[in-house]
């Protein structure tokens, strides 16, 4: 069992508030990912949970026990660091057994747990080596092994893959997902890489400026972002934004006049919108199509294109000067400066009010 409750948590350094009041519930066996741009406080939040930083205010509760002021070792958590933080002069075996030795565990039990962890992570042949004799991926596995032998209630990962090369990162990502299933463990994972967040998480926590912007499953964040920040942060290439005004509001929809030169009717209940209100329309590259006919046509000028083979990401500029990205078939590449006609997929448009909050959530839910 591992249920973590965070209540109104704050943290300041020298009068500067880094974490500005966080409330979060993490359920047993959940894989939770904290994601956000650098400096958003995600690592600090993890270190507060681990007990490596002192809390300025609020409460952390693990399985009904208040752990806010407990020292890190007493919290029953294990952490994997970005630089692995292996003990350089100890063999892999001693790195794994160090915590158990400090806890004066039974020798046979230590040996058994180390063997178990080595088997799960395929570290058997490396046990007698020193960390400097290991590759990056192997060091990473030792660091995870060091967490596993302690059998903690929650695993904490602080950007564990960011020191690996791209190919290894993909491989370790899959191994982490497998490990989560095998160990049936609760994991909290910090990353700035939204691909890691989307692929690994049961629940993503998007942080920005020390606050939670949105909590939800990866698909919820993708399909119904709560605000413009989440909408822009999740999804690659990022969502395009077009400024516009509310043209008309009635019972089954609201018409939006987009500055870029089109008018579309969105199936929104017209919640709290008045004619003339400034709004922002969000549309992802995959929901824009090159088309001569359609419900909402817009003429744009092609900028540069990025051809990936399967797809081409074409950067365009609307007549109102706003940048957009369009995903089109891989065999098409518009010339620089070419005029294109785009149609918007009305079902996948997102509408945000002047404060950047999404209007009429959810536009569309995917099961």
């Amino acid at each position, binding site marked *: 069992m591992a249920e973590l409750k965070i209540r109104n948590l704050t943290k300041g350094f020298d009068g500067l508030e880094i974490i500005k009041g966080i409330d979060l519930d993490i359920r047993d066996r959940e894989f939770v990912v904290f994601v956000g741009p650098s400096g958003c406080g995600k690592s600090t939040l993890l270190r507060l949970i681990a007990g490596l930083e002192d809390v300025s205010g609020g409460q952390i509760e693990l399985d009904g026990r208040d752990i806010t002021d407990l020292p890190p*070792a007493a919290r029953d958590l294990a952490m994997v660091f*970005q*630089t692995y933080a292996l*003990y*350089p*002069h100890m063999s892999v075996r001693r790195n794994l057994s*160090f*915590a158990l030795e400090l806890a004066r565990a039974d020798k046979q039990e230590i040996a058994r747990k180390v063997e178990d962890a080595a088997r799960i992570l395929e570290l058997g042949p490396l046990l007698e080596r020193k960390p400097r004799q290991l590759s990056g991926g192997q060091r990473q596995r030792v660091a995870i092994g060091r967490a596993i032998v302690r059998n903690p209630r929650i695993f904490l990962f602080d950007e564990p893959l960011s020191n690996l090369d791209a190919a290894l990162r993909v491989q370790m990502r899959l191994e982490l997902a497998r490990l989560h299933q095998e160990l049936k463990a609760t994991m909290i994972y910090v990353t700035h890489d939204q691909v890691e967040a989307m692929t690994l998480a049961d629940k993503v926590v998007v942080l920005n400026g020390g606050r939670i912007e949105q909590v939800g499953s990866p698909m919820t964040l993708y399909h119904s972002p709560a605000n413009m920040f989440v909408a822009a942060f999740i999804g690659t290439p990022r969502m395009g934004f077009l400024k516009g005004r509310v043209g008309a509001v009635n019972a089954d929809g609201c018409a939006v006049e987009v500055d870029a030169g089109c008018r579309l009717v969105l199936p929104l209940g017209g919640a709290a919108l008045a004619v003339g209100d400034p709004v922002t329309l969000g549309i992802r590259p995959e929901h824009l199509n090159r088309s001569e006919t359609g419900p909402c046509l817009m003429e744009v000028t092609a900028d540069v294109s990025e051809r990936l083979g399967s797809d081409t990401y074409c950067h365009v500029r609307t007549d109102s000067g706003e940048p957009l990205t369009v995903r089109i078939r891989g065999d098409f590449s518009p010339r620089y400066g070419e005029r294109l006609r785009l149609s918007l997929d009305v079902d996948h448009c997102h509408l945000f009010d002047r404060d950047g909050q999404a209007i009429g959530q959810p536009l569309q839910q995917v099961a």
Partner: protein
Amino acid sequence: MNTTTLPTAPRTTAPAARAARAMRRLGPGWFLVSPSVALLLLWMLVPLAMTVYFSTIRYNLLYPGDNDFVGFENFYYFLTDAGFVPGMLNTLLLVGSVLLISVVLGVLIAALLEAAEFPGRGLVRVLLISPFFIMPTVSALIWKNLLFHPVSGILAALWKFFGARPIDWLAEYPLLSVIIIVSWQWLPFAILILMTAMQSLDQEQKEAARLDGAGPLAIFWHLTLPHLARPIAVVVMIETIFLLSVFAEIFTTTSGGPGYASTNLAYLIYNQALLQFDVGMASAGGLIAVVIANIAAIVLVRMLGKNLTEKY
């Protein structure tokens, strides 16, 4: 300086190769290294050769002109001199004790400085380092007249305050006094090196250890000390080199006495050359000191060299 045959040199026709060789001999490379080579010859080889020469002749300043070749007689007399065995033992004791004191206290003080956050830490650091910048003669005089002096010294005042008889440190514990003075000078060096090394210890390792349940003592024992192995080796090596030749401290305080109680090898050689005017025997002693220093260097490199080349 054989630059004529380079195995990797491209094969060219014979005259061209000869021309290239001539170029190299006259070329700027040879010309540019010559000042340093000349300096080395002048400052190292010439004195060494002269010392070797002096050690084999009778050469006493009191008997000018009487410079016969005497073979190894000077070595024999130096090794059987009443001061040689105490001088050797004192040298070893001095080097060993100062190394022990400066490394152990150095590690502890550096660890305390690293662990504690207190106002004025920067100032304390500077104060701790500053004895290193005081020249040996001056620091020895400070210790002799302000601290150890049985009448006007601070230690004497302290003893009197508690009603005890003041100790005449330099007369009663001459070698211990010298050890204390030299340690006071070299402890800052150890602190400086170890403090810097301690700052390079990965903070995440410490945090990982904290999560693993290690307290401050366990972190010190299992992480900090192993991390310091290399800088400690550096401190030991460098201090050994300088401690083998401690002279000014002895000269200004005890003059090697009473008897030979605080005479080390360097002081013994000085004594032979400039107090007994026997340059020949002093030269023999100097060569023996060179041999001893080399033995110490070889032992140290064997013991600690692995520590220096091993990578983490």
